[in-house]
């Protein structure tokens, strides 16, 4: 798939439904075929996209075996067109067994979900800043302590509705923050992508 095809596909996916049309038009024979082309029209007879959530228990040729947090099981097929995020846009080679995930895609006849996007370990926490160090912060989320790791070249902050900046010197203990980042299963901390700082 060329970059142009990928952009067209992702644009269609963001509008919702277009990916499903593609899958149906191709007979939904397999996940790769489902995302091989894009269509601009929507067919209301075709069901909407589906969502998967859980921990990755195994991986096999781009097929994720996911244990949902409420007892369900998902089989999520990654394709050349699947958008993968893990702290930053990346490829599936960064995905590991034990990671948490959210995925959006289309249900194939065999029950597999062909994913157009997966977000690995992503969290977006409303919390209060409790500690600031050179390379980490501590926050309270739902009365639990969470360590946020500041990642040079990646962690950005927005203060009071302003633009994103790499300047973290305006962080203050007691501030309300939205912390978007990637949870690290190994130590339960979070690599911080972005801090939205309140007033």
């Amino acid at each position, binding site marked *: 798939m060329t970059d142009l095809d990928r952009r067209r596909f992702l644009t269609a996916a*963001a*509008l*919702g439904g277009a990916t499903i049309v593609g899958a149906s038009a191709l007979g939904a024979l397999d996940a790769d075929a489902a995302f091989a082309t894009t269509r601009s029209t929507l067919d209301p007879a075709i069901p*909407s*996209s589906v*969502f*998967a*959530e*859980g*921990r990755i228990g195994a991986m096999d040729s781009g097929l994720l075996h996911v244990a*949902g*947090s*409420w007892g369900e099981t998902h089989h999520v097929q990654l394709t050349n067109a699947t958008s993968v*995020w893990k702290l930053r*846009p990346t490829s599936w080679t960064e995905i590991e067994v034990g990671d*948490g995930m*959210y995925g*959006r895609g289309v249900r194939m006849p065999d029950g597999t979900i062909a994913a157009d*996007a997966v*977000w690995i*370990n*992503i*969290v*977006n*926490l*409303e919390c209060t800043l409790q500690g600031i160090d050179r390379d980490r912060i501590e926050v309270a*989320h*739902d*009365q*639990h302590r*969470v360590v946020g790791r500041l990642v040079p070249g990646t962690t950005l902050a*927005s203060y*009071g*509705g302003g633009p994103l900046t790499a300047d973290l010197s305006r962080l203050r203990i007691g501030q*309300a923050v*939205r912390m*978007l980042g990637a*949870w690290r*299963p190994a130590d*339960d901390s*979070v690599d911080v*992508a*972005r801090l*939205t700082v*309140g*007033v």
Partner: protein
Amino acid sequence: MACGSTYLWRGKCTWFCCGGGWGPCGSTGTGACGTCQSSQYKGAWPNASQACWDITRPDLCGENMPRRGCGSVMRIRHQCTNATVCITIADCGPRTKSFCGAKSCCNGVCRTNHIVDLTPAAFSVIGNLSSGHVPVWIYE
């Protein structure tokens, strides 16, 4: 309850996890209504009850949205792509007062103040989770 087309509010929409899950979400409960779950199309509204309002205080940011309690249905539309999702209110939030002036923009038009939170399942229908927020219009 129907997912309608009567304008209700507009502003910045964010996402949150609830009902358990992996990582820091594992400690989250099922929300103020007892029905919130990340994998379902649910949302949080700052005026879900008087007790909720007392916590979120959107009026301190100039937002005096009406009360819509547990089980209320809303249609959330992305301001620019027009992608929509229907949600059921299942929690109290976001804490609007803590983020007065926070903006979300597309095509040069911004919406201000956190006025609704969606579960990951719902948010992923209208936006990219890694963006963290989108500008929305809300209908009922």
